[in-house]
């Protein structure tokens, strides 16, 4: 053998894993297999970074199933779901930093996952779990469970929304002052610390004589989170048009008739003219007093979306703008065309709300009307994603540079209104399609670190797939590498821009 004349083949570029088609066709600048390597520079690689413990407390959280970023006013914190392997209780903790943990702030038996949306410092939590339909495993909200709100201060999460007060008001003419004379219905709206206003309740009719009115026997709430109560009233009801139904009226907030506590039971000498009743409270009558838990949550136009409830897997509840606990049970609904699959994700991009099923993508656009009137556009009848299949961009949703990165059955794709093909995982098509999605599509979770120019993907095998796109975010230039860890990686998040948080469970 003439070794002397042998000419070496210089390998000058390392463009990542290639697992597509025949192994003999792997380009010379790619790897046919690799593990636990990290790309840096234009064409270099090294061993992946090590993992370190993230908690210095004496009893760190264990059996971690899900981690979300929870940006509060003062810090970027984490919300963490763990499961007690003995009791089956799902416990949600608020991890403020490496040494401070609040909780459990919420404990629900059987909770295996949850959806989370931070809003105005609070956190909205929707517990969900798996259900099996045929050979496939899907996710939907837990039966008999609800949307919860967490104040962010370590106090237990409580059920969002709430029922109106019960009771009857005692109403009498006040001393002096003024009202528009006539028959009308008064009521009380309670407001919680998170701003949720209940439907008008304690409805009581009274005929004002032109003087002010004094309201007594105002009920207080057993809910310790009720902080404010408002007096509402109808306009004077013309004689003969009152049907006797106290609630079938149009209510308005009475100006300045506010009780800023949950203890006072009267408010005296309230003066108002009907012309000053401008702030409509009627819509509150249709509010859900408790919001069923769903597997999907997102924000759209300052509205909270809750979808895939246990009983209505293709239904999305849409809150009123700026009131994430106020869901109109008549006009605040969106029904995605039924196909037997639940809504699996939701994301806003460029003023459009995209809803996903596992193999379908549709969109709705806010037309300034009720959500039930928003027009439907089918974006893709074949591609969709899973509850954690849209890459979270840092800690602020899933859109970066006018596009989302979405895990679909065909691979990981960029989505800018349509799925861009070839998909980002084109080079590792065999690897991706070799994953077991039968009961684990919902286990995929992705985060996107634009600063590091990396995608981190939790795989059904409970390892990681990392894509480095420093050379370009397209199917040719992204460099993929599987990462394995001794532990079972169940979730991933980014904290403080570049800290990659990994959650490991007992598996």
């Amino acid at each position: 053998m003439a070794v002397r004349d042998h000419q070496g083949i210089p390998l000058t570029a390392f463009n990542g894993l290639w697992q597509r088609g025949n192994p003999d066709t792997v380009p010379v600048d790619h790897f046919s297999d690799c593990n636990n390597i990290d790309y840096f520079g234009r064409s270099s690689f090294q061993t992946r970074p090590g993992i370190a413990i993230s908690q210095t407390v004496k009893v760190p959280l264990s059996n971690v199933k899900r981690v979300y970023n929870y940006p509060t006013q003062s810090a970027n914190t984490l919300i963490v779901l763990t499961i007690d392997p003995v009791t089956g209780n799902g416990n949600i903790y608020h991890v403020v930093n490496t040494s401070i943990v609040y909780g459990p702030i919420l404990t629900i038996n059987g909770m295996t996952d949850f959806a989370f949306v931070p809003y105005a410092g609070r956190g909205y939590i929707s517990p969900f779990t798996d259900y099996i339909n045929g050979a496939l495993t899907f996710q939907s909200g837990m039966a008999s469970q609800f949307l919860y709100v967490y104040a962010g201060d370590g106090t237990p999460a409580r059920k969002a929304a709430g029922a109106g007060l019960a009771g009857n008001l005692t109403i009498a003419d006040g001393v002096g002052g003024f009202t528009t004379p006539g028959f009308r219905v008064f009521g009380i709206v309670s407001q919680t610390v998170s701003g949720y206003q209940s439907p008008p309740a304690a409805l009581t009719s009274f005929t004002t004589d032109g003087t002010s009115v004094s309201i007594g026997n105002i009920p207080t709430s057993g809910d310790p989170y009720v902080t404010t109560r408002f007096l509402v009233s109808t306009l004077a009801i013309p004689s003969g048009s009152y049907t006797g139904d106290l609630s079938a009226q149009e209510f308005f907030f009475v100006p300045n008739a506010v009780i800023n506590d949950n203890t006072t039971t009267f408010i005296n000498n309230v003066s108002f003219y009907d012309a000053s009743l401008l702030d409509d409270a009627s819509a509150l009558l249709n509010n859900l007093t408790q919001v069923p838990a769903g597997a999907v949550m997102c924000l759209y136009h300052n509205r909270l979306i809750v979808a895939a409830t246990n009983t209505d897997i293709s239904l999305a509840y849409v809150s009123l703008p700026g009131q994430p606990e106020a869901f109109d049970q008549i006009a605040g609904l969106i029904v995605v065309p039924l196909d037997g699959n639940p809504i699996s994700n939701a994301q806003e991009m460029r003023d459009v709300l995209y809803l996903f099923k596992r193999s379908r993508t549709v969109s709705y656009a806010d037309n300034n009307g009720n959500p039930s009137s928003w027009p439907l556009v089918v974006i893709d009848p074949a591609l969709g994603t899973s509850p954690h299949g849209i890459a979270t961009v840092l800690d602020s949703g899933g859109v970066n540079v006018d596009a989302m990165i979405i895990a679909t059955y065909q691979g990981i794709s960029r989505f800018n209104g349509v799925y861009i093909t070839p998909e980002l995982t084109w080079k590792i098509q065999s690897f991706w399609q070799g994953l077991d999605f039968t009961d684990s599509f919902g286990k995929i979770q992705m985060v996107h670190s634009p600063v590091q120019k990396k995608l981190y993907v939790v795989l059904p095998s409970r390892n990681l797939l990392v894509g480095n796109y420093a050379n370009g975010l397209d199917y040719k230039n992204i460099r993929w590498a599987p990462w394995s860890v001794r532990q079972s990686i169940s979730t991933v998040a980014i904290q403080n821009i570049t800290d990659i948080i990994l959650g490991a469970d007992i598996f």
Partner: protein
Amino acid sequence: MANTFQLVGQLVLIVGSDPDDGVDIVIGSASVPYSIANLAIALSSPNQTVNPNTFVGIQPGAMVPAASTIKYVVNTATLVLTAQGVAAGVYNGVNDLPAGFTPLTVQLNYSGGIQNVDLGFISFFDGTDAGANANCIFTVFFDLMTTMRVLSAGNNSYFTPPASFVDGRYPGASAIDLFNNGYGFEFVDNDFPDENLLSLDYLNITGTYEIVQQQTTIPPITVQNTLPVQAGDPITINDTSGTLEGVSSIILTPATGSPITVPFDSYYIITQIPNQLVFYLPIGFGTYTGPLTITLVGNGIEFSGSVTAGTVTVSFADGSGIYVLQDNQPYDDLYLRTQITTIQELFLQLDEDLSNSFAIKSEENSDFYSQLTYPRAVLAQSEEDELDSFSLIGALSNATLTNTVPIPSPFIKTSFLPPA
């Protein structure tokens, strides 16, 4: 006396010149025309002195297709094995044969004729053609694949192959071929349908066999790990016989719960050479602690079937929790939650003159406990004035420590590099 077998068989008439694309007709099927019924009669004829199951023939008057094959199908035949205490018995088809059955030689015997009919082994009668006009061809196959002999004969001819022949006489044919493909004849009549007689004398197929015990022991395969292992720990298996390269699958079976198959890929299989197999213990056993039986499955080349390599003890250690990627850290730090830890210490009541030493000792112990990095609780502590000869101090805790481990198996494989 050698082990012998005898085929007591079943004939199939295959319509079509190509044995592989013909339509198989099993004798006895009433739904098919031609001579099936006659054959059935022939087989049950009281005049037959031979084993009716070994006689084949198509009676006069039966119509034979222009191109036909008569095939002795072995894989559904009844096989009678005689042996010196090994595997003797009657078996229904090849698939029913005992494991390791291997035919060594085969004999096809034509040792007689039908009573009062002096026919050869194969004969045919052309009803109208004669002499040079006869235009029939027999091709005798050993296994319907390998041509043994071609006979072109005229009217009322017969053909008698050698009285017996053994495996190996005809290149390409073997005893195993017989079992795989059968034995038969192709009959092509270019003057069809003139011919009306085709008869085969009785046929007896016998041979010798042995039971080849492929169940080889692969001793000694040993699991090197003697200490309890946890998920992610490498498990090393040694084998002095050098068969471990033939392992294609590893099954781990706990005493309770479902077995787990180790993914046979580069992420889990660290080393696979003839004498050693090293793999990472995968996740998936939950909180299980106990023995784990390791079963190796062969790839059918070095060995087939499976062999138990041994057991390891799995010790559950809860390493779950919240982690963070740490740049420039060349190892992984994992949580390590141990089981309950108890610390016990005996105190011996001391003489008065040694009380100072005792006090110092107590102080030292106090410092010791306060320096522990994990929570602890004193279960019982005797006051000094209550000390008996012995007293007990214990500390019970669920300790969470950290465990530094290497990053598992970083590697790359390049593409196939062609010669320069």
